[in-house]
């Protein structure tokens, strides 16, 4: 794991360490099973087509989990995630599988973020971040924000 980041290490404009992700059809099945979200929208071609999204889409909630992963990796184990929000603005489509565990070549997703504010409130050292997931076409289809408390070197 990366070394612990402190409140004093961060400035407005600092980048959250980017996190790389790939969505595959296999992963959508795995996510459906682990989450209990069995909406056919994420595995049934005709259902997705009839709903008007073309073909099965990546769960918004999976992209949301990536953003949580982005933040918790960055703030480390002494950081505390206080708030996170995101909106799903567009559809993302998974890579198909070539082998049991190997996806076809295709899109790669990057989770990114930037510090927009840092402040101390009730003795907590807080940072506010803008966060998003960028797909292989450069589209930011999932955008949101997060607030986290970081440990301080001052204490």
């Amino acid at each position: 794991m990366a070394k612990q980041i402190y409140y004093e290490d961060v400035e407005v404009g600092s980048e959250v360490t980017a996190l790389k992700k790939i969505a595959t059809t296999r992963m959508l099945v795995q996510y459906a099973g682990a989450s209990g979200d069995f909406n056919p929208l994420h595995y049934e071609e005709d259902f997705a087509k009839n709903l008007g999204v073309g073909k099965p889409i990546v769960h918004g909630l999976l992209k949301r989990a990536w953003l949580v992963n982005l933040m918790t990796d960055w703030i480390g184990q002494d950081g505390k995630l206080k708030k996170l929000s995101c909106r799903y603005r567009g559809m993302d489509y998974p890579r198909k599988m070539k082998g049991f565990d190997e996806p076809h070549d295709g899109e790669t997703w990057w989770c990114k973020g930037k510090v927009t504010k840092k402040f101390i409130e009730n003795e907590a050292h807080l940072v506010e971040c803008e966060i998003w997931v960028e797909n292989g076409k450069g589209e930011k289809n999932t955008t949101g924000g997060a607030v986290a408390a970081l440990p301080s070197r001052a204490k």
Partner: protein
Amino acid sequence: MAAFVVTDSLKLLIGQKEPPIVFKIEEGAIQRYARAVGDSNPLYNDVEYGAQSKWGRVMAPPGFTGWPVAAGFDIFKLFEKLAKAGAPMGLLDGGVEYDFLAPVGAGDVLIAEIKIAGMEGRETKMGPTMVTTLESTYTNQRGAVVLVTRNTFLNF
């Protein structure tokens, strides 16, 4: 095309609470979720590591608690009820807001309380759409509120 008009029979459902649901946070469910979303943090994956941590157990990543994972309720039943009251049948997830108030880990027993916080008629690229907001509060076995979530859905 026009904005969806929220009918009176739908408006009656705003503020209505679902019966509270009690459920347990299971270690195996946390591990399966962490693997499925590709989060390799040992605190969520490794029983030994969790036991040695300051928490003394496997912890749930933020976002594990809440719909759809550890939510305790079937959201599609709720949307069937809305559809019967006149909501459009198409359903897409619009987004979510979390307030993480206290940690959640394996063995915790939570009470989920969910209500329909709002319905709003709009016009989106999917056509006439109703934006439905659900608000949920999760309380642990010690009486502490651990999480408040607001989920937004598009019915079109």
